[in-house]
């Protein structure tokens, strides 16, 4: 008897709470799953800080459509299985309206089936071209693809009249998928690969692989990777006295790389988003004010920017614009509006998404930069 009464009271309370919840403006819930620990931590860390910073700003300005934004975050540690479970948690338990995230390609690729099944928009921050190719209805991405990086490097090599390249990559997802794109694009640009070496991302010495490269007739070395390994490769190249142009990928476009590699980094070229060279852009460049504003705010709080934090900025801003245009958080409407993103000026470039292109960036957004005197210089 008592139990029945208790249950009735409980139900009544629950109903009241429910009614109250609906009458007040519910916050917009944006979910994210990033690699804040693990080998790719230095990618996910600025991404999370950026998301928190941008959302704080938006809320200070009154939120979106009069509703506050709430960020729900889980750290995947770079493990694709964790990523999938956390995305399920975001969708089922936290019931988020939209997801921005997936620091690494592996994490992003792992969650795509679940996102498609749940019909919720996902804006990935990772690089692999497979995320948006083939086009999936609910999946978008804002980071430059590894294919664009490879193309940019080959363009630069062609300009310098070099066509024999040695490739050295790590054993991570970013490295391997970069390697694949280099192998695929090389014939298109008339490049011959004279070496294709690999190392472990936690290795501490790559002189062995580089010694093999030294014995070939390579005219340039391309290294695809991120974290400390590319810095070690760069130092080892110097140590072995190999005097060839060295190309790194956009994976090392952060101050950390220059700090780690030290003087050995001098002369290294890499394709990077304009963010790292914002000050050097001509004043006519439409991106310049956006870049400088983000850079100023981020550096005031957290220290040097990296292009990865920039991707998070692009992702959350594209989402915010789309939510504004959709006038609410209806998932299908948000998705349609994200797809209609055009002329959005982000840190990675100007986004023009279409039904066939769920990224909407072109090669223009990528700058070839060279490291000179410990700083980035545009070389175009």
């Amino acid at each position, binding site marked *: 008897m008592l139990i029945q009464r208790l249950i009735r009271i409980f139900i009544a309370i629950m109903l009241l709470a429910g009614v109250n919840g609906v009458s007040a403006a519910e916050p917009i819930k944006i979910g994210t799953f990033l690699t*804040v620990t693990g080998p790719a931590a230095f990618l996910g860390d600025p991404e999370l800080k950026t998301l928190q910073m941008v959302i704080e700003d938006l809320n200070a300005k009154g939120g979106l459509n009069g509703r506050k934004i709430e960020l729900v975050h889980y750290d995947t540690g770079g493990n694709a299985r964790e990523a999938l479970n956390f995305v399920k948690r975001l969708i089922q338990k936290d019931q988020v309206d939209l997801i921005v995230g997936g620091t690494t390609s592996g994490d992003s690729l792992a969650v795509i089936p679940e996102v498609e099944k749940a019909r919720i928009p996902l804006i990935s921050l990772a690089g692999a071209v497979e995320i948006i190719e083939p086009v999936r209805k609910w999946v978008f991405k804002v980071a430059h693809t590894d294919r664009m990086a490879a193309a940019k490097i080959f363009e630069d090599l062609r300009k310098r009249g070099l066509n024999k390249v040695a490739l050295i990559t790590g054993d991570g997802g970013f490295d391997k998928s970069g390697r694949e794109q280099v192998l695929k694009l090389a014939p298109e640009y008339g490049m011959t690969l004279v070496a294709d070496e690999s190392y472990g991302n936690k290795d501490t*010495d790559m002189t*062995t*692989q580089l*010694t*093999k490269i030294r014995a070939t007739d390579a005219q340039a070395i391309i290294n695809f990777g991120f974290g400390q390994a590319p810095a070690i490769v760069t130092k080892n190249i110097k140590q072995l006295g190999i005097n060839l142009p060295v190309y790194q990928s956009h994976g090392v476009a952060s101050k950390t790389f220059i700090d*780690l590699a030290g003087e050995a980094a001098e002369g290294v070229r890499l394709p990077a988003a304009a963010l790292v060279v914002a000050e050097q852009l001509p004043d006519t460049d439409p991106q310049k004010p956006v870049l400088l504003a983000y850079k100023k705010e981020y550096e005031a709080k957290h220290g040097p920017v990296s292009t990865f934090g920039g991707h998070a900025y692009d992702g959350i801003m594209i989402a915010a614009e789309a939510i504004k245009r959709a006038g609410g958080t209806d998932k299908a409407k948000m998705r349609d509006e994200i797809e209609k993103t055009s002329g959005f000026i982000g840190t990675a470039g100007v986004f023009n998404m279409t039904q066939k292109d769920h990224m909407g960036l072109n090669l223009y957004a990528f700058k070839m930069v060279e490291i000179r005197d410990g700083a980035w210089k545009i070389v175009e």
Partner: protein
Amino acid sequence: MLEQIFQFLVAGITVGSIYALVGLGFALIYNASDVVNFAQGEFVMLGAMTAIALLGAGLPLALAAIAATLLTALTGLLLERCAIEPAHGASVVTTIIITIGAAIFLRGVASLLWGKNSLPLPAFSGNEPINLGGATLLPQSLWVLGGTVLLVGLTRAFLNRTLLGKALLACSFNPAAAQLVGINVKVMLRLAYGLSAGLGAIAGILAAPITFSSYEAGIMLGLKGFSAAIVGGIGNPMGAVAGGLLLGILEALGAGLISSGYKDAIAFVFVLMVLFFEPTGLFGHKVAERV
């Protein structure tokens, strides 16, 4: 070709001596307590990270290195006192899990203190490569090699020549008997942890200009050090050193001559082969089971 192989060997020996130093730390603790300390790699990381932090705080390099070594040794001592000693008498697997827990804990502390980026330590004497019969190596590699030789020599002398060292060895052979002849086993255990933590810290500091360091750096170094200690025959400090060098050279030769992608697999296939033919490592003691 010969010149190439020489360069591979130089690379292998440099990396191998880092493994050797880490392996030596494993052997020391195992010698005193029959415990394999899976937090050994974290000591290496702690030494390097503390030195980098102290250097950043304005201390001169030498002082930062000494302070970092002492601080890490203290951490080792604390670990023994707070986590290993209370679990006295627990099974081997239980102590392994405790040390794994300690490793995760230390990693967590490091990530909070110093963030998640890799950090560099400046080379002790410049970055100008030295040419050695066609192979080039960094001055820092010489520091690593010299440090290894010196530390291995000191450890050996300590264990074989000093009373304290002999007492330490006695604890592993038979703790009860050691206690009976008046050795304070508890103090010996703390000493062993402190020593091997300090040893790990020095290894980390010597290697950091080449390898950099981050809160996660201990995982890989711990793994390789453990392999070195096992291949050499665990409990034999000189075996651990030989094992480390062997492993480093194998990796370099595997990467250079066979396949750089599969080099870790090649090294471990070799380790398995060694164990299949020498079940107690290359220089391990053969122990008969008592019923």
